[in-house]
């Protein structure tokens, strides 16, 4: 019997059907595999893996179970996990999520949040008193906690100690930002007269970004208050924005945007900038990327906004959440306690990932007290530990990213105003811009029917 449409069409049809069957068989075999793990643990943080792998192997032996550790790209975690949890697709039993993304998962009524509510569990285990308190806010929504904090991430300034000494800068006197700027104006100059500054005091991103946010936090200004109301249109924020604009724009600026990667490394190596904002996790990046400055770097607390004020802030964070669809919550919780809050593991791990854990009892481990030759033999761990209790709280919010975008919009308009008019009416303009942008965020929050009080408890919103 001959195929009526010719051999070419028949061949294409056969190839297509066989390929489809092949893919289908592979997928079915994967799905019906007998050696399924007891727990699937997904993380976006590649830096965490080297410490987790041996710890998990030990946990598996002790508990006679199988744990599958998956590395998943961060945008994938944010973009797909929420949808997967809602439609009942396969999800991990425990998952690490990035600072700033919790709002995505808690954007609806509380009963629809896909993660297990850990509020009571934390109380039962006494963790509320054992961990740095300010770290719970990032993983909470409307008073309910949905993830365990992995870190503290206090912020210091890393600086070129050798160049500062050559220039006669006494960093112990840089206790306030006013003093820092005064010295910065002397340091930042065009020595050879070619119209380009040869040296800057500090690396600050030109678009504000995370640096502006962490400086706001240090000063006590936030995007949202404890009740979730937009609050970045206050005078404190306006003052901070204006301060930042003066340091990054115009002729009296003291900063240069070093960016990331190679440019950051070159800026540090050439000492184009002397000071760099440096949370604990960045100390490892600097050590890995700019080995040429070994022994030439040192760490100091952030200058305070007023004498005696807070000398640190925070940048970034990871939280560990448990999807409700997880099949083995008790075992997953046990693994979480083992990985996150076992003091004996956290000491050696600090040597590997340079990240300060939030479990205060772990800070007595000897590894936190070791001098670091890269940072001029400073006891890096202890430097961050001293600042950890001051780390400000930053509550999560569904519209945190939107608010950051609007803060950036206001900031850019203030820059334009400053470049055109200088200091004339700068703070008034900044306040007006912040009010306009904050109002826009309020409009967006208000139109979310899932966040309205009458919808929080009703099932009406559910399909």
């Amino acid at each position: 019997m001959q195929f009526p449409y010719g051999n070419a069409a028949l061949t294409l049809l056969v190839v297509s059907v066989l390929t489809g069957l092949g893919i289908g068989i592979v997928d079915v075999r994967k799905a019906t595999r007998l050696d399924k793990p007891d727990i699937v643990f997904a993380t976006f943080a590649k830096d965490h893996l080297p410490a987790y792998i041996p710890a998990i192997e030990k946990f598996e032996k002790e508990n006679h179970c199988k744990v599958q550790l998956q590395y998943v790209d961060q945008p994938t975690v944010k973009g797909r996990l929420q949808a997967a949890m809602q439609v009942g697709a396969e999800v991990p039993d425990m998952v690490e999520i990035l600072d700033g993304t919790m709002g995505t998962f808690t954007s609806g009524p509380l009963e629809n949040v896909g993660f297990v509510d850990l509020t009571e569990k934390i109380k039962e285990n006494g963790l509320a008193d054992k961990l740095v308190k300010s770290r719970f806010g990032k993983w909470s929504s409307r008073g309910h906690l949905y993830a365990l904090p992995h870190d503290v991430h206090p912020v210091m300034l890393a600086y070129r100690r050798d160049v500062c000494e050559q220039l006669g800068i006494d960093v112990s006197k840089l206790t306030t930002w006013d003093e820092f700027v005064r010295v910065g104006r002397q340091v930042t100059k065009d020595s050879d007269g070619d119209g380009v500054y040869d040296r800057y005091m500090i690396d600050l991103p030109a678009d504000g970004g995370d640096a502006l946010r962490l400086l706001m936090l240090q000063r006590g200004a936030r995007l949202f208050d404890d009740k979730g109301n937009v609050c970045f249109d206050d005078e404190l924020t306006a003052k901070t924005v204006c301060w930042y604009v003066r340091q990054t724009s115009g002729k009296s600026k003291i900063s240069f945007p070093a960016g990331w990667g190679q440019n950051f490394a070159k800026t540090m190596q050439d000492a184009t900038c002397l000071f760099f904002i440096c949370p604990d996790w960045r100390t490892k990046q600097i050590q890995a990327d700019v080995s040429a400055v070994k022994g030439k770097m040192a760490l100091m607390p952030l200058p305070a906004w007023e004498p005696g004020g807070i000398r640190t802030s925070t940048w970034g964070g990871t939280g560990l959440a448990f999807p409700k669809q997880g099949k083995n919550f008790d075992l997953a919780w046990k693994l979480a306690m083992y990985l996150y809050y076992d003091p004996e593991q956290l000491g050696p791990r600090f040597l590997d990932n340079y990240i300060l854990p939030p479990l205060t009892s772990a800070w007595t481990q000897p590894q936190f007290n070791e001098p670091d030759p890269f940072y001029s033999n400073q006891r890096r761990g202890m430097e961050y530990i001293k600042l950890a209790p001051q780390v400000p709280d930053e509550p999560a919010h569904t519209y945190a990213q939107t608010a950051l975008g609007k803060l950036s919009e206001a900031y850019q308009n203030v820059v334009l105003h400053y470049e055109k008019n200088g200091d004339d009416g700068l703070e008034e303009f900044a306040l007006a811009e912040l009010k306009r942008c904050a109002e826009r965020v309020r409009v967006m929050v208000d139109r979310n029917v899932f966040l309205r009080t009458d919808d929080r408890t009703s099932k009406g919103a559910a399909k």
Partner: protein
Amino acid sequence: MSLTTPQGPAIASVKEINRAGDILKPRGGPNNSYRGPRWAPYIFLSPYFLLTALFFIYPLISAAVLAFYQTNGPSYRKYVGLENFRFILGDPDFHTAILNTLVFACGSVFIQLPLSLALAMMLNARSDRFKSLFRLAIFAPNLVGSVFVGILFMMLFTPRYGLFNQFLQTLVGWGLEQRWLADPSLVMPAIIICTLWMYVGFNMIYFLAALQNVDANLVEAAKIDGAGPASIFWNVTRPAITPVATFVVVTSTIGSFNLYELPFTLLQGSGPNNSGLFAVTYLYNYFNSQDLGTAAAVGWVLAGMIFAVSLIQIFLSGTTRRDR
């Protein structure tokens, strides 16, 4: 009767033509009809219809319905009527996104396409052995993915250390510390520079193909009649390449309205003061925040705009009039 020339039969007879026509008649025609089961063709066509229905018609209808709901992910939705459309049409960010998209589209049409045409004319005028090499060199950037181009130019535009800034400083003594991606007034030029590098060669290929099809006899006749290069271009070349030019303009405009990956990777978001916010980025932001209803409404508004702009362009180019 056979039409002959002194060298022999050059044109086939009418009978021969009819015979050839019979051979070339499609199968299934009245003289050679298909005798299998009547439903067989539909079976073979069904995969296409099935896939179209599943991946095109159903999503289209679903998106139309979704635009009238506010959603929190795929499972939770609430009917809001026209609220999504009302909101986006009154949203200053949407206006910014549309304005940026239109500016970029104008940049594409009025900078990129004339440049493509000029390059094509230069290549068409020359007939040396390096022609293919030039054509490949100009077209090659299009072989690179737009995400890669975004990352590449992000490095090139780096203040102080970026190649582009250093080149400008060396050439004109300005630009070493220009913040192309952080200064709202420089973001759009930076994106246009990237797309010029990427797409000029691609559109040049279309124009080159069109120019090579311009009737050389007409050009020769115009020259004999005393027409200058400008007159030849306007009266001979332009009408001949108009259908291709219309196609390039329409596809470039649609491409401009769909711009997403390049600014997103170049700016790692919407850029300072939303200067790199485009219509599709605006849509993606709602999609990413689980508000699929608003994203669907943006999609429909965008589709309507693309349809309207394309219609206007086709009407203005006069292509349809000539087709009639």
